[in-house]
């Protein structure tokens, strides 16, 4: 409990489980290949590297696209649009509901009910209304993520000390000014924290939507090659998605630290 690792030891300790998993995989893969040279379930790493090279650097024979990059741009674009719009709506509605009793009375229950709708259940409706194009996938992410954001932000705003709002008013602030100069900047770190937590669900919705109807995208590719049991494509794709999500999370942390240093001063101590 009182032994804290140093910086170097911390990195080694963090890497250790990953290395362990890799070793186990390599052994398992070799074992299965020894028993059956045509085994597809656990392709050796060399084979995955080979396939990845093809996906990254060689144009597809049919479409001429670099498959991984086409998929990644398509997916990230949907994800960014979805999360961005969700954040905007969540912030606006959340601040309004938390700050203005009238808005809280008007929308509070609605949001509470809406957040209980399973987003995947309305996916068919989205496909019917918005068609099979980009819009329905983006809307699915928005529908899945926004209610959570609204509820969390509104609760956080409502929990702000009353003293601050009163103090701002004694400094001459109107409701609008309280919202943009006192509430909004204080709520931004919380929004970023929420977005970090919602990266997982957002990917879930994205990949589900892509699996059902798309012509490009990370989820689309995985579900496409599933038919041929191409584990040598699926596994690198999963790793790539994980890496993307991790980097996104890291980027959000860095943005928050840089833009809102006051919110992180306590963490540093």
């Amino acid at each position, binding site marked *: 409990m009182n032994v804290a690792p140093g910086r170097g030891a911390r990195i080694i300790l963090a890497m250790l489980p990953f290395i362990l998993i890799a070793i186990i995989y390599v052994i398992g893969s070799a074992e299965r290949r020894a028993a059956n040279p045509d085994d597809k379930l656990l392709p050796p790493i060399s084979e995955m590297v080979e396939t990845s090279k093809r996906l990254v650097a060689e144009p597809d024979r049919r479409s001429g696209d670099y498959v991984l990059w086409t998929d990644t741009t398509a997916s990230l674009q949907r994800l960014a649009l979805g999360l961005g719009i969700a954040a905007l709506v969540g912030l606006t509605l959340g601040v309004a509901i938390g700050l203005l009793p009238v808005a809280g009375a008007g929308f509070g229950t609605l949001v509470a009910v809406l957040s209980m709708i399973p987003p995947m259940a309305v996916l068919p409706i989205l496909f019917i209304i918005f068609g099979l194009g980009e819009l329905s996938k983006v809307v699915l992410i928005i529908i899945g993520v926004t209610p959570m954001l609204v509820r969390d932000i509104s609760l956080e705003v409502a929990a702000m000390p009353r003293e601050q709002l009163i*103090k701002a008013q004694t*400094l001459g602030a109107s409701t609008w000014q309280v919202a943009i100069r006192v509430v909004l900047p204080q709520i931004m770190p919380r929004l970023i924290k929420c977005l970090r937590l919602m990266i997982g669900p957002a990917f879930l919705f994205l990949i589900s939507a892509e699996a059902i109807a798309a012509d490009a995208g990370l989820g689309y590719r995985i579900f496409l090659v599933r038919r041929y049991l191409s584990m040598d494509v699926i596994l690198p794709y999963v790793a790539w998605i994980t890496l993307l999500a991790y980097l996104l999370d890291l980027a959000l942390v860095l943005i928050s630290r840089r833009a809102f240093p006051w919110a992180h001063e306590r963490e540093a101590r």
Partner: protein
Amino acid sequence: MSTLSFRNVWVEYGDQVVLERINLEIDSGTFLSVVGPSGAGKSTLLQLILGQRRPTQGSVLLDGKPFPAEPGPDRGIVFQRYSVFPHLTVLGNVLLGYELAERAFTARLLGEPRRKAIEKSLALIEAVGLDQHRDKYPSALSGGMQQRLAIAQAIAKHPRVLLLDEPFGALDPGTRAQMHALIKPLWRDLKMTIVMVTHDIKEAFGLATRLIALDRVRHDPQAPERFGAMITYDLDLTRDSAVPVLGFTKAEAKSGHKTLERN
């Protein structure tokens, strides 16, 4: 002369009577301390002046006119905690008051007006002794420094009435003494009316020119909530006057004093 008057004010929360029959005239430039046990409605009195709460009966008037029932820039406040904005630096906290007044939509100043506002803010920050810390965030300041900042922020708008809600309650005795040495000259220079709620009797007597005590004097054992707190003592603490107790005017108290001397 800005006078704050309470005319037969009652405050009730549902069945509970908090304050009853409050009649009070506060002259401009008064430093009024409000003391009393917990639950005697001291903070409620402050909320009435702040406009955060309306009296159930009676009226609260500033210069003979009722004021809008929401907090506004003519009444500043320093709370015991949460008075400063954690997301703004010391300078930003003081600057905010000027920014809010001059730009209704963006609440941000640019260029020349900003420079002027910064100059004014820095003068205030220096007046409360925080010039070394102008770029720090409140979380990096001690409790005493945060309260200094809150005071600088509140007086930036030149409020006619400054309300202090147990402003030094969370500070250690040494820091508290420093704060006393700070607030008294500020009050004298700016000619504000100050209403301070405090638990510290010594502080109440030491700083104020007038002191009122709130307490529940009437009790009904069957319905303890039916009687509210009233003003039980109203003391004039200026140097050259006798101390009038409730019901005596200053003149009566003085003549009473003379008769005593004659005897």
